[in-house]
């Protein structure tokens, strides 16, 4: 199986998942109680106005027609209007997407950086405190409810010692000057991104440590050492480089988790992002909004899965070059 075939297969598969999620999305939101009109209904509307609204939201048509229309519109990111704000859902999501991405990348990069380097560190120094710390943190990440840690951090640094902002993505209004604004953003990022890091770096570190240890036990590492390569070269060029495929896969495979983990984080820190939008929409039974947000999240998960496959293929020469039958 060549790389191209591999890629095509993965792509086709992603499209299938997308299609299924879209259909699911459609069905789910049709079985919600009540209908769109009663949702946005101002008691002052008369029946004619209601009918007018029904056709505006397209819920007077047969379900099949609705489905086709829905598929077409979602593929072009036309998610309709929010019942609540009556604005285009995609417009609202677009406003929030940069915030979500900022939080996501900030936390993801710090988590991955801290996690992987701690993992490498622990693997390089077996039996030291670092290793115990990493093992403990991994277990902690698995067992502690993340939102609890976030609540505690919020309570400690937001309320008890109010040294960090408790909410939002920036000061209102932010200080003048590009640099000051950047720092202001960073300042607001500390709690949400930092807490995400605290919650999840452990599992990264643990995974890295395990794969590194496995790699360090390999014969080729012995070869590398025997060749008289210095420690760093052995550790990074040989051991780390050879575990990069699984770690990279892990990076991309945990993208979906990080995307969805943002839902709770955004809620706790009132981060003006897509995850919070989903929760708000669900709570207010704003179907188009919830549908749009869910679609966007699902899409990002599919894309990151695809990226994971792609990355795996690129990094692992066995797939890239296309021998890989073993």
């Amino acid at each position, binding site marked *: 199986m060549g790389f191209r075939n591999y890629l095509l297969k993965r792509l086709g598969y992603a499209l299938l*998942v997308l299609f299924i999620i879209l259909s699911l999305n459609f069905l789910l939101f049709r079985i919600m109680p009540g209908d769109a009109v009663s949702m946005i209904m101002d008691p002052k509307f008369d029946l004619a106005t209601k009918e007018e609204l029904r056709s505006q939201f397209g819920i007077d048509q047969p379900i099949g027609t609705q489905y086709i229309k829905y598929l077409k519109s979602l593929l072009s990111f036309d998610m309709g209007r929010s019942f609540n704000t009556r604005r285009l859902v995609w417009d609202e999501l677009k406003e929030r997407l940069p915030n979500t991405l900022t939080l996501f990348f900030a936390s993801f990069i710090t988590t991955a950086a801290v996690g992987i380097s701690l993992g490498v560190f622990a693997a390089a120094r077996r039996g030291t405190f670092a290793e115990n710390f990493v093992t403990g943190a991994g277990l902690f990440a698995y*067992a502690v409810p993340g939102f609890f840690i976030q609540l505690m951090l919020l309570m400690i640094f937001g309320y008890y010692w109010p040294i960090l902002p408790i909410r939002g993505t920036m000061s209102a209004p932010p200080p003048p000057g590009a640099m000051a604004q950047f720092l202001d953003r960073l300042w607001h990022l500390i709690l949400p991104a930092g807490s995400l890091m605290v919650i999840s770096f452990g599992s990264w570190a643990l995974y890295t440590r395990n794969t590194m240890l496995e790699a360090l036990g390999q014969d080729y590492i012995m070869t590398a050492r025997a060749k008289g390569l210095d420690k760093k070269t052995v550790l990074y060029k040989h051991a780390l480089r050879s575990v990069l495929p699984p770690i990279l896969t892990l990076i991309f495979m945990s993208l979906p988790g990080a*995307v969805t983990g943002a839902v709770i984080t955004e809620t706790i820190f009132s981060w003006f992002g897509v995850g919070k939008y989903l929760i708000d929409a669900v709570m207010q039974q704003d179907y188009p909004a*919830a549908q749009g947000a869910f679609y966007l999240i699902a899409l990002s998960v599919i894309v990151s899965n695809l990226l994971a496959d792609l990355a795996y293929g690129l990094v692992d020469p066995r797939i890239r070059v296309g021998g890989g039958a073993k």
Partner: protein
Amino acid sequence: MSKIRGGNGNNVAQEPPKKLKKVTFWQQYRRKPLGMLGLCIVVVYVLAAIAAPIITQYDPTKDLFLADNLAAPLWMKNLSEKYKDAPVTISKTVDLDGWNVTEGADFSITKTTYDEEDFMLIDMPAASSSGEQDPMMEILKDIYTPEELAEMFGASAAAKTSFSMDFTFPYNYSPPNTFNFTFDYAVEGSSPEATTVARLLIISPSGKEYDIWGMDAYGDWPISYITVDGRDVPVKMRLGLGFFDDPSKIILSEKGDYKVKFMVETDSSTGAKIYITPVKINIPGLLHGILGTDHMGSDLWSQLIYGARISLLIGLTAAFISVFLGTTVGIISGYVGGAVDEVLMRFVDVLLAIPSLPILIVLSALLGTSVWNVVILVAMFSWMGTARLVRSQTLTLKERAFVEAAKASGATDGYVMVTHILPNVMPLVFSALVLRIPSAILTEASLSFLGLGDPRVPTWGRMLQNARGFGAFTVMAWWWLLPPGLALTFLSLAFVFIGNTVNEILNPRYRERS
């Protein structure tokens, strides 16, 4: 992405004698300190869950207003200056024996029942016969004839009888946020145009009088259900306070013995029967129990203890359903193979690609927020891993001699799956089950925390949500936040310990995977 490793099939013992294995399993398990620690923690939780009604005397959903909202734990008294003098709920009913009758003449006071309730009956004599006389009336009596007076003031206006009783209660705390008195009150046998005036007064240790309640009854008065509460606008009004003033902060600002005085005065010419139930006095405490109270005055300690029930129930049930599903699908997929396998595994892949928390959020909002919905949803979106694991194991088992032999001897597929494959995947299934429990518990907690749990069921996630939503931060009520979070942490940690230990013993090859 089915990158499954471990396919050479040498890792499963060939149907070892079951009884022997059980013994060895436990012997091995006993030696693992973390496993034992986990087991001990779980046992403690299970005991707490079973014995919840014994450990705590309150029902977390029904017993509300046990103390004031957001009352602090009792032990905060020793930790914080703020709570040093804070009151603990004072709740008592003062019946006839508790009252001290101080004033009046010719009345009788007895216990009676009315409409199946205990009442005190104060039988007031006719106004004309005795009682203090209005000095103005004394003068008017001399000027007018009784007939003329009756014409002017009504039959009984000339004279009044009065009665008063009081009781004392000590109050040695800082002021509470409110207080209330509850009783039923009625007047019977009064002459139609007479007025019967009742009042309730609080007299502070320093002698200040606060007139907190009063009622002018004209003629007979049907039973009225009276509650006098420090937060009520009429009470503030009577005391001449503003909307945002707290009567309790003013009245109960002193320490010492407070006197509560009940007074009646009637000008009925026929006398009057005053009915009053024993008075319930309630001062909601600012300190309560082991963990204080929530925003509804409900006991947090009992919520925590009962939470163990729910969490264990949810975790076990969801994990069981999930693992059952996963095992069934895995065995069928692996054993039957071919198109069935392909379809089932693609289905698993699709499910794995759906972001689980968002879909759970959406679905639980759609299906309503009952505990069972949450259980089923959590199970529905978590069985895929088990299915894959079991499938790969089944694939290797399928090739083994004993399966071949069974098939050759004419056993049906179902029979082979149940009697040959299933027992051999049980070690995997068992550890998957144990490791599924904490993730089910945490998922439920997350949903509850987001407000998508069952609002009538006290779970730890819900406690955390309430803490966040109803003021734990503003009053720094860490005793509200910390316990449920730690309870969750320890429980899931315990299951992880157990799961890892079980895995180490039963499935050494799969140790790092699930």
